[in-house]
Every structure is written in structure tokens, then in C-alpha cells.
């Protein structure tokens, strides 16, 4: 009995933090202004503007996730190889920005990418013509990569660091060259880290509206912006909740897909 009592705070938490809000999202998403049941809020995703926003979101977050992966994986390998003494410091330096305010970090990119921002000023002082950076998809991708890179580095570094050097030596001993050691040993063993890194970058990138607001200048609408506007500007909670549900289903399906890849990835090495 006492044990059950101990879990009470968590039950309250789940109730207030998960179940009630979820129920409300479902309620608003599946009802119309007049209160009756409708699927029109869900179907609204097919409208040109919404579909385009979703497509842009998927595209930009995929590109950002891939860039993060390409940056983080070699970094993880380098960190694994570096000497014990400096390893902690190096990881710390890469993760440090994570502890700075998210808005501040994104705002810094605004200052860098602006028409008369830091990057253009430097380019022009070197005699190059300025670049149009701010309010482009490129700017949003840069912001996403910068903001979410630590979430890719940490899980990948963690799995790589856990791979026993003796296992790598055993593969070498059995005749594998550097590429084969990577292909058949290191890569398969690091799949769980890649999966959690991809998840931790792709999902927030897909739903963000802050980065696109600040670096896209309202010209590039992501699905996150559309949902945000339905709640704030448009004051149509039903449509906003309906689109949120679509996003949720989309994310669940992607996660299921990635998890399946995770299982197949292991063991299936040759």
C-alpha cells in the first residue's frame, strides 16, 4: 500500500502533464467551432499552404539532421581517439552552448546573418559582394544545426566511447583494415547512438517555430509557425490542435520507422 502511495505524485504528474493536455488537444482537434465532431481540422493538412509548410518543415529538418550527423559522427570518433586528459574538456566545449538560452543562441545567428551583419561586413571588407543570408532556408538550416548539434554529439559520442578498444583490436587481429573495422564493427555498434541522435535533432527541428520566426523573417512558414499562428493570431484552436495531431502521428510513424531500422541495423552486418 505504502509503495503505491509513493507513486502518487507521479500519477498526478502524468494526469496533469500528459493525459489532460492530450485529451484537450484531441478534443479541440476533433471538434469544430460549434462543438460537433469533425475531421476537417485533420484534413486541413491537405490544404496547399499547410501541406507546403509541412513539406518545407520535413525537408529543412531532414537536411539539418543529416548535416548534424555528418558533423557529429567524425567528431565522436575524434573524441574517442583523443587522450583521456583532454577528452572531458573537449566534450564539455561542444556541449557548452546547450546551456545558453535558446533564444539568445538563435538571436546571435540573426546578428551574424543579417544584411549588414557580421558575415556580410567581413565579406565586404575583403572586397567580396555581400550574400543574402537572413530570411532564407539556408539561414534556418544553419540555426537548426547550431541549436541541435549537441543533441547529436552526445548520444553518438556516448556509444562510441563505450566501444571497447579490445573489440576493435580483435577485428584488426582477424584481418580487418581500418575501413572494414569501421563498416563491420564501429558503425553497427553505434547505431543506437545514431538513432537517438537523429530523434533528438529531427523531432525538435520538425516542430520548431522560433528558429524559423527569427531567421526566416516570417517569409518561410514551417508547420510549427502555422500551428503557432492558429493559436495566437488566427485564434482558431480547433485547427491548431488538429494540425498538431497530424504532426504527432507523423512523428510517431517516423520514430517507428527509425526504431525498425535500429533493430535491423544490429546483427545484420554482412
Amino acid at each position, binding site marked *: 500500500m505504502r509503495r503505491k502511495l509513493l507513486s502518487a505524485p507521479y500519477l498526478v504528474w502524468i494526469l496533469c502533464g500528459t493525459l489532460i493536455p492530450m485529451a484537450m488537444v484531441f478534443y479541440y482537434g476533433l471538434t469544430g467551432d460549434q462543438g460537433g465532431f469533425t475531421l476537417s481540422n485533420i484534413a486541413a493538412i491537405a490544404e496547399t499552404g499547410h501541406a507546403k509548410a509541412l513539406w518545407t518543415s520535413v525537408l529543412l529538418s531532414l537536411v539539418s539532421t543529416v548535416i548534424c550527423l555528418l558533423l557529429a559522427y567524425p567528431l565522436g570518433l575524434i573524441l574517442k581517439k583523443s587522450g583521456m586528459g583532454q577528452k572531458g574538456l573537449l566534450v564539455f566545449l561542444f556541449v557548452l552552448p546547450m546551456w545558453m538560452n535558446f533564444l539568445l543562441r538563435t538571436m546571435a545567428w540573426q546578428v551574424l546573418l543579417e544584411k549588414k551583419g557580421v558575415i556580410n561586413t567581413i565579406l565586404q571588407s575583403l572586397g567580396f559582394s555581400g550574400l543574402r543570408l537572413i530570411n532564407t532556408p539556408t539561414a534556418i538550416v544553419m540555426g537548426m544545426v547550431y541549436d541541435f548539434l549537441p543533441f547529436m554529439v552526445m548520444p553518438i559520442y556516448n556509444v562510441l566511447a563505450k566501444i*571497447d578498444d*579490445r*573489440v576493435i*583490436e*580483435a*577485428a*584488426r*587481429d*582477424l*584481418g*580487418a*583494415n581500418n575501413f*572494414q573495422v569501421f563498416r*563491420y*564493427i564501429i558503425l*553497427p*555498434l553505434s547505431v543506437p547512438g545514431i538513432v537517438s541522435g537523429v530523434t533528438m535533432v529531427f523531432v525538435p527541428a520538425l516542430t520548431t517555430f522560433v528558429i524559423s520566426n527569427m531567421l526566416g523573417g516570417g517569409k518561410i512558414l514551417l508547420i510549427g509557425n502555422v500551428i503557432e499562428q492558429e493559436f495566437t493570431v488566427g485564434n482558431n484552436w480547433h485547427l491548431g490542435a488538429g494540425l498538431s495531431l497530424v504532426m504527432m502521428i507523423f512523428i510517431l510513424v517516423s520514430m517507428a520507422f527509425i526504431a525498425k531500422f535500429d533493430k535491423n541495423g*544490429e*546483427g545484420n*552486418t*554482412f
Partner: protein
Amino acid sequence: MSTPLIELSHISKAFDGDIILDDLNLKVHENEFITLLGPSGCGKTTTLRIIGGFEKPDMGQVLFEGKDITQIPPNKRPLNTVFQKYALFTNMSIEENIAFGLKISGKSKSYIQDKIKYALKLVNLDGFEKRSVDSLSGGQQQRIAIARAIVNEPKVLLLDEPLGALDLKLRQDMQYELIRLKNELGITFIFVTHDQEEALTMSDQVVVMNKGYIQQMGTPEQIYNEPENAFVADFIGDSNILPGIMLHDRLVRILNTDFVCVDEGFGTNRPVDVVIRPEDLRLGAPGAGSLDGVVTHLIFKGVHYEMEVLAGGFEWLVQSTKCWPVGMKVSLAVDPFDIQIMHKPESEDEEAMVIDA
């Protein structure tokens, strides 16, 4: 004798300024079971890793069948290693683990299938093909690690304390298993351990190492019965090591008592170390032996009793199948050929290298 299979020539290695190996020379012949034995930090594992190619020596050469392989990476060396903690690939099934080396070298599917079957039979784990690494016990994992190495038909198998993580009973079973494997395969085993019993049980040749030097190399009988210095005598089995003076050939003075021995050529009136194994000491009635003393401790060890006897100011360790109670007055006697005389090192340095010279 023919060219040694592996020859280490003037190998030196230091890590961060600490000298691990100093001018080490070692020859390993074909079809030998050779054990590198020593306390931790003696350089035995480093020696093995240099042979395997995982460490490069600072100086010296590794020769394989007379060819210099010092600079050749581990994946191109005709030898395989069994690691201390097995180091199996957890992302693969047992079958894939064993097949790894063969797949890398591009062997045909049917050849690989035959080899997997053969190797699993050899290590008594038939039918384990599809199992996962995690579902195996430590002893089974170790056998898979051995199977994974031997399917590649290496000329030499390197084993780095492979039984260290196993419990006593399993370790003893695996010792017999390894001897059987070695005889069936007819390949050279280089085995590293800190366990003297393991070394004596399995090896054709034992190399006793300490502080980066080889202290003594010989058959298990030679190492046990004729240790060449106090370190070897102390490290291998139980022993009474005493300072003595070699009065002349075949006569040594220990604790002011003269003992007849069989050693010659140490000069006259030379200080020496004397080792007498506890099972070689005989207890008798006072006055019947060379020294009189009194029993101070008694322990029952199963096969024998172990006594400590205070005689001539020295605590002698004595093993006997007869029980001599504490407080009993006794005498100690020893046969001349059971007294082993050793050169006394004159400095620390010499203590380490005494054999190397």
C-alpha cells in the same frame, strides 16, 4: 636448431618514460606452448602486444620465420589473439563472430560453414551458431573467442590471460581444454598469465619475467626445481629463501650450520642465496636433523599440513603429511640435492637482469 618461428631481438619499450621492456630477447619455436609468467607490470602483456602488432617497440625487431615484421600492422600478421575479456563482437551472432576473419579474407560460403561447424565442435559448443553473445556465460564466451581465432589457422595463437576472468573450477577445466586444443591443432601457443600454477600445468616452456627483464626461461620442472634467482624461487611456489655462504664446492653454511649440497662452481666463501622447498624439509625428533627448533604455527591444507618452525632464528615453512602440533620441539633435515644455490645479486639493477647477462 631450426630458425625460430618468432624471435624478439633487443626489444625495448617505454610508456610515458616508464621503461616496460629493456633489451628483451626471446625465441619461440614451432609447436611450443610457451608461457610468459610474471607479476602485473612485469612487461608480459606488452611483450604479447608487440608480437601481435598492437604496440610498436621503441627499439628492436620482431622476426617471424626470420622475416622482420616489426612495422607490419596486426591485420597483416599471420597470428591471432585471444583477448583477456574475450572482446567478442556483440553486434553479431556466434556464427558471424567466428566467420569474421574468414569473411574478411574472402573465403567461400561453404568453406566458412564447414569451418564454423568444426570450430564449434572443437570448443565443445556445437549448435551455438545462432546464439547471441550476451546469452553465453564467461567460459562459453572465452571458448568462442578461441574458436574465432583458430578458424583462421594462424601459425601462432597469442593468449592474453584468457582464463583470468573465470572461476577456479572452470579455469582448471579450460587449462586441460587448451592443452588438448594445442595438441589437436599443432600450432604454437604464446600464453600470458600471472598464475604460476597455470604456467606450470600447461607449458612446454615458461618465461619468468620481472621489471621488464626475463628472469629465467626453461621447462616447468627446471623453473620449479632449479630457480636461478630468489625472484623466481619466490614467485614460483612456496619456498624458504635464506642467505648463505658457499664455503666451497658442495658445502654451504646457512644460519651458522653447514649443509652438504650438490652445487659446484660458486667459488669459495662466496655469499649466495639458498632456496629450500617446504616439501623437501623433513621433521624429526630433536637432535636427529641438522637444526633444532620448535613448531610455531600449524595449518591443515587438505593434501598436507603446513607448519612454521622457528629454528636458528629463521621461520621455516615446512609441508608434511604428518601433523606436528604447535609447541613441539623438532629437528629439521634436508637432502643435499634438495638445496638449490643461487647467485646473489649485488645491486638492484643486477637483481633485475641477473639472467639477462
